[in-house]
């Protein structure tokens, strides 16, 4: 008997003895449904993570640093919500792996598939950011009514004074037009409450400011005075 026949014979004998059984169609359908559901959940998670990055940047005022020159850019790179961003990237990588597993997407390069998913992620996250979802969750976190995600949202209010960032309301403008005072006094009793005297950068039109306006200031503290290299009025909305 040839070797080929032996292999076939062994396989068929194992089938007859019940040592090898056929997996049911339901098994494969459940497998696809499970991976499909996991993919959808991961996609939702990735959209949530990136839209949180967008929301966090503008809700914390970090975006204003982009207007403050090289020093502002450096601070932006430090204060960027990298953790949420890397979670988004991690989700994309897992999503790509799952998609390649259940669809013939492996026919395209990893880079191309990644760019497609990235584009979907950016568009989707922008749309999510337009909804009041994150504002609502932030207000819930402020009221200590958001379990699990609460600390994530509360970090938006973190003081960045150690990075030379000051936020507050203008309480007075100096007559000489060179300094003004801001105070920050929210309800969370963080370390960011206080009053600071700000010296604007040269060429800054201090008359464009008025008492009661919210400002975002980047500078360095020296002898109790903040020498600013960037000032931005923050609109109330």
């Amino acid at each position, binding site marked *: 008997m040839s070797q080929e026949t032996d*292999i076939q014979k062994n*396989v068929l004998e194992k*089938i007859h003895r019940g040592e*090898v059984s056929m997996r049911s*169609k339901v098994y494969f359908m459940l497998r696809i449904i499970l991976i499909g559901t996991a993919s959808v959940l991961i996609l939702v998670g990735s959209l949530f993570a990136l839209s949180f990055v967008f929301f966090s940047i503008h809700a914390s005022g970090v975006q204003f640093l982009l207007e403050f020159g090289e020093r502002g850019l450096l601070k932006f790179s430090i204060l960027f919500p990298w953790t949420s961003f890397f979670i988004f990237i991690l989700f994309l990588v897992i999503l790509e792996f799952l998609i390649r597993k259940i669809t013939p997407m*492996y*026919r395209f390069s990893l880079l191309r598939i990644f760019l497609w998913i990235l584009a979907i992620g950016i568009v989707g996250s922008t749309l999510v950011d337009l909804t009041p979802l994150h504002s609502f969750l932030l207000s819930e976190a402020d009221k200590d009514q958001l379990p699990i995600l609460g600390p994530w949202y509360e970090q938006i209010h973190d003081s960045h004074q150690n990075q030379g960032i000051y936020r507050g309301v203008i309480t007075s403008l100096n007559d000489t037009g060179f300094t003004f005072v801001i105070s920050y006094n929210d309800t969370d009793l963080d370390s960011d409450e206080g009053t600071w005297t700000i010296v604007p950068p040269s060429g800054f039109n201090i008359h464009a400011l008025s008492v009661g306006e919210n400002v975002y200031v980047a500078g360095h503290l020296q002898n109790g005075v903040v020498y600013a290299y960037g000032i931005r009025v923050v609109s109330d909305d």
Partner: protein
Amino acid sequence: MDESLTHKTDEELATLVQGKNEVAFGVLMSRYQPKLIRYGRKFLSEKAHIEDAVQEVFIKVYRNIQGFDATRSFSPWIYRIAHNMFVNTMRQNSRLPFVTVDLDLFSAHAAYEVDPAGDEERMEMRALVERGLEALSPNYREVIILYYLEQLAYQQIADVLHVPIGTVGVRLHRARETLKHYVAGN
């Protein structure tokens, strides 16, 4: 053997196997055993290892046949199972790393033209493959075997290896060049 089954396509036989027709499975095994043994020889040197691996391939095929989509080609599906089996067996036997980074998968090779080989070139390359296969790294070896010896199309090779079609073209091109240089140098 049922004569009526021998005229059926692989996909028709697979559909019958899904209905638990063991005779049809026997026909499929007869059809693919010589091909898989030949394919296995390019990965494994010991006869016993090849035969064990082929037997395991058939067991996996039977176990997972309900997951085969009969509207698609059967050949890449079974070669995919065989490929994974041979590569795993080869790694177990040779202590090759289990996870390797394949840079070819990251880049896009869309501009690479699919260039079907003519009969003459195929014959010439088969001779080269037999003489210089050991000169090729596993990535190039499997592509050239599937194309010149197993006569699978680019699309089918992409389905077996789960790599982009452009990558198949690039690897074939590099493998051909490496083989020609190797044979010319010897």
